[in-house]
C-alpha cells in the first residue's frame, strides 16, 4: 500500500527594527514589535488557525486514518504564545487525536549545524524541551533548518539518538533515483532519510492557484491519481511544505482547504494511506544509502546553502555571529541568551541574499528590507551592540579556556559552599534536636517533681 507523508513547517523570525549605528551601545532592544505582531497575527488568522481546524476535521472524519507531522521552531512558538495564544490551544486539540507528530529541530531555526556543533546540540535539546513542555510529546525524527543536510550533520544527528531525518530530494543527490523510497545516510547507516518529493510538494505550495500552469486546476482526485500512477513498488510520497501554504501562499479563495479536505476520501478509494515520519521509518526498509558530501537544502534553484551563505555579506555576518558563540554559552544573562537565539534565525541571512531572477524575487518577497545591503547594515549594527554586551559580561582580555576554568572554580566553590552549608544545617538540626531532647527531659523531670509535690501536698 502506498502512503502519503505530510509534514508542515511553521517558522517566523523576530524581525529586527530599524537599528541605526548611533543606537549601538545605547539601545539594547532590537525587535520590531509592531511588524512581528502584525505578521504573525495575520498569518495565523489567514492560515494557521483555519488550517488547524481543517486538519482536525479531516482527522475526525477519517477516523484517525489521516496523519500529519509538524515542525515548529522555538522562536515561532514564542511569538505564537505571545501574540496568538489561541493557536497553541488549537494545536493541543490536534495533539489529542494522536494523529499528529512533532519533529525536532533547532530552537532558533538557526544555521548552527553548519558552524558550531555544540550550539547545534544545545538548541535541539532546547527545542525538544519546549515541545515537550507545551504539547507533552517528545520528537523522534529530526528536521534541520530549511532541510539543510550533509554527511557531517547526519553523524551529529545520529549521535543525538535520532532514528530518522527529513530532507530535500535534491536532484544532484538522487540522480536517477526516486525520492519515493526510504533511504539511509551513508555516513550514519542507522539514520533513515525521508526525502521530499519536490515536484508534488511544489504543485500544492507554489502552483496550486497558478492559472498559467498546464495542470490548473488541481483537484484532489487528479492529485491522488498522480500518486497512484507512480511506479507500484514506490511505497511513500513525502509532501513537505510551509504551513502558510494553506491559506496564505494559496489563499482560501483558491479552494486549498477544500482540496485538502477531499484528499483522504479519494486516497481511501485508491487504497492510499497516510502516515507520520516516525511510522514511515519504523515500517519501511531503506533501499539504499545516500551520501551528501556538501550541505543541501530546500531553498532556491541550486538546493544548496547559497541562499544564506552565498555572498560576502552573509558570510561575514555569519562568522561574526558565531565568533562569540562560546562566550555567550559561558554567560548566564537571560536576556542575552534570548537575543542570542533570535539573532541566529536563518532569515536574517536570507534577507542579505543578492541573487537575481526568480530566486531573487522569492527572497525580496519575504524580506522586510528594500535591499540586501540595508539588511546587512541593520543586522551588523544590532550584532555590534550584541557583541558589546557579550564583552561587557566578562573582560575580553581573558581567553575562553581561562575563563572557563575560572568559572568552573567558581561553580565548584559554590557547590562546595552549598555542601558545607548542608553539613552545617544538619549539624545544627542535630544540635537542636539534642537540645530539644534535653529540654524535654528537663520538663519531664520538672513535671514529675511537680506531681510529686502535689502528691505530697
Amino acid at each position, binding site marked *: 500500500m502506498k502512503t502519503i507523508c505530510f509534514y508542515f513547517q511553521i517558522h517566523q523570525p523576530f524581525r529586527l527594527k530599524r537599528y*541605526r*549605528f*548611533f543606537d*549601538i551601545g545605547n539601545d539594547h532592544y532590537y525587535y520590531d514589535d509592531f511588524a512581528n505582531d502584525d505578521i504573525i497575527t495575520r498569518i495565523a488568522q489567514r492560515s494557521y488557525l483555519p488550517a488547524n481546524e481543517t486538519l482536525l476535521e479531516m482527522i475526525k472524519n477519517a477516523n484517525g486514518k489521516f496523519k500529519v507531522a509538524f515542525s515548529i521552531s522555538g522562536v515561532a512558538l514564542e511569538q505564537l504564545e505571545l501574540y496568538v495564544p489561541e493557536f497553541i490551544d488549537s494545536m493541543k486539540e490536534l495533539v489529542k487525536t494522536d494523529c499528529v507528530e512533532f519533529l525536532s529541530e533547532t530552537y532558533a531555526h538557526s544555521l548552527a549545524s553548519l558552524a558550531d556543533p555544540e550550539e547545534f546540540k544545545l538548541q535541539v535539546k532546547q527545542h525538544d524541551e519546549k515541545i515537550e513542555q507545551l504539547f507533552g510529546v517528545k520528537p523522534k525524527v529530526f528536521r534541520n533548518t530549511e532541510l539543510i543536510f550533509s554527511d557531517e550533520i547526519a553523524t551529529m544527528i545520529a549521535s543525538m539518538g535520532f532514528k530518522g531525518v527529513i530532507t530535500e530530494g535534491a536532484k544532484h543527490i538522487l540522480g536517477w533515483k526516486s525520492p519515493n523510497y526510504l533511504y539511509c545516510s551513508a555516513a550514519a547507516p542507522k539514520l533513515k532519510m525521508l526525502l521530499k518529493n519536490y515536484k508534488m510538494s511544489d504543485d500544492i505550495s507554489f502552483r496550486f492557484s497558478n492559472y498559467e500552469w498546464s495542470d490548473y486546476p488541481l483537484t484532489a482526485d487528479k492529485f491522488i491519481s498522480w500518486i497512484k500512477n507512480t511506479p507500484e513498488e514506490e511505497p511513500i510520497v513525502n509532501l513537505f511544505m510551509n504551513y502558510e501554504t494553506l491559506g496564505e501562499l494559496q489563499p482560501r479563495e483558491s479552494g486549498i482547504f477544500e482540496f485538502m479536505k477531499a484528499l483522504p476520501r479519494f486516497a481511501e478509494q485508491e487504497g492510499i494511506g497516510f502516515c507520520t515520519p516516525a511510522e514511515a521509518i519504523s515500517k519501511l526498509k531503506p533501499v539504499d544509502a545516500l551520501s551528501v558530501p556538501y550541505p543541501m537544502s530546500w531553498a532556491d534553484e541550486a538546493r544548496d546553502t547559497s541562499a544564506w551563505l552565498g*555572498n*560576502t*555579506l552573509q*558570510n*561575514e*555576518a555569519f562568522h561574526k555571529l558565531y565568533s562569540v558563540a562560546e562566550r555567550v554559552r559561558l554567560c548566564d544573562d537571560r536576556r542575552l541568551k534570548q537575543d542570542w537565539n533570535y539573532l541566529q534565525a536563518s532569515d536574517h541571512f536570507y534577507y542579505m541574499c*543578492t541573487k*537575481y531572477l526568480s530566486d531573487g524575487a522569492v527572497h525580496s518577497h519575504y524580506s522586510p528590507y*528594500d*535591499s540586501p*545591503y*540595508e539588511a*546587512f*547594515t541593520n543586522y*551588523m*549594527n544590532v550584532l*555590534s551592540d550584541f557583541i558589546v554586551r557579550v564583552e561587557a559580561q566578562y573582560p575580553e582580555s581573558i581567553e575562553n579556556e581561562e575563563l572557563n576554568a575560572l568559572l568552573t572554580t567558581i561553580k565548584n566553590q559554590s557547590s562546595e559552599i552549598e555542601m558545607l552549608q548542608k553539613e552545617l544545617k544538619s549539624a545544627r538540626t542535630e544540635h537542636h534536636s539534642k537540645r530539644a531532647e534535653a529540654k524535654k527531659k528537663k520538663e519531664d523531670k520538672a513535671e514529675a517533681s511537680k506531681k510529686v509535690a502535689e502528691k505530697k501536698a
Partner: protein
Amino acid sequence: MFGWEFPPHILGGLGTASYGLTKGMAECGDIEITFVIPKPYGDEDKTFAHIIGAANTPVAWRDVSWDYVQQRYGYCMNPQEYFDLRSHIYADFNYLKTNDLGCIEFSGRYPDNLMEEINNYSIVAGVIARTEQFDVIHSHDWLTYPAGIHAKQVSGKPLVIHVHATDFDRSRGNVNPTVYNIERDGMLHADHIITVSNLTRQTVIEKYHIDPAKVTTVHNAVEPLSDEIKAIEMPHNPKEKVVTFLGRITMQKGPEYFVEAAARVLRKTNHVRFVMAGSGDMMNKMIKLSAERNISDRFHFTGFLRGRQVYEMLKASDVYVMPSVSEPFGISPLEAMQVGVPSIISKQSGCAEILTNVIKTDYWDIDAMADAIYSIITYPAIYKQLREEGEREVNEIKWKYAGQKVIDIYHNVMRNNN
C-alpha cells in the same frame, strides 16, 4: 543632432552623455551622424560623427577666398563645407553681429545672454538644415530645442528631443517661466521625446502635460575607463577612511544633507574624513554649516575638479555619496563604481532605477545615509561586496545598448512620418 557641449570642452553631464550616446549609436552601425555644436575647438573626436560648428556657419554672404577660409577655420572644418553652407543662406542676417566671414560668435558656455545665443543657434540651424541631407533631427536638452524645431519646419523631417534635465530638477520647483516655455514648446513640436530616467519621464508627463505615448526612457550609460585612468594609483591610509561628495555644490545636489550625515557619523567614530569636491553657489554656506556642526577638522573642500583630478579623488575615496534632491540621471555614481568605490545614492536620482549594487536612501533621510556610510567604513564585507559587484554591474551598462534603443525610436518616427 543638435548639442550644446561636446568633450573635451564640457561643463557638466550633458556633454558626456551626448558624446557617449553618439558614439554608442555609431557602434550599432548603418547610421551617419552630423553633430552641431556652438563652438568647436578642433580637438573633438571626429571618428564617429561629422561635427559642424555653429560659430563657423555663415548666415550672411561674404565674398571670401578658399585660402582665407582655410586659414581661419581650417583647424576645425573643410573650407568646401563653408561654401556649401554659404550657398544655403535663406535670409539677410546682416543686422546681427557677424564677423568678416558672416558668422555669429558663440561662447558655447552658459553666458548671461544665453537666450540670445539660443536664438542665434536656431538661426544657424536653419542654414544647416537646408544644406545637409538627413532623416531625423535629434535635439539634446532645452538649449537646442528651438534649433530642432526650426530644422523640422525647414526640412519636414521628424524631430526627436532628448530631455537630459528639466527646469524642475535644476530649480527645486522654482521654475523659470521662459525656460519652461522653451522646454514645453520643444516637447509639443517633437515627434518623440527621450528621457534619461522614468523619474524625468514622469516630470515630462505630469508637469509639461505631454502625451505619455510619445515619451520613452533611455537610461544613460558610461564610457569604459581609459588605460591611463585605470593606471592611476592613489595612496590609501588604512587607518582613515575617505567619504566623498562630488558634484556642483548647488541646491539640486543636496550638499547640506551630506554635511549633516557627516556630523552624525563623526559623533560615533573618528577615523574618517569627509570631502566635498566641486564648486557652486552653496559652497560658502556649506563651509559655514560644517563649522557650525563642529566638524571642520574632518570635513574638507577641494574646489572644482576636472578630468584626471576627478578620478584621482574617486580613487582615493572609500565611499561615494550622491544625495541629490532631484537628479534626472546622475552619471557620477557610475563613474565611482567603475573605479570600485561603493556608492550611496538618493532614491530621487534617475540612476537608482537601473543600479542594484548601491545603497539607496531618501535624500532627506540623514539617519539612513549616515548609517550606510558607517556600515561601509566599518564592515569590510559590505565594502568588498559593493566594490566588486558594483564594478561588475556598471561594466555591463554600455552606451551601445542605449544607442540601439534610440535607433529603434528613429525607425519608429520615420515610419510614422511617411
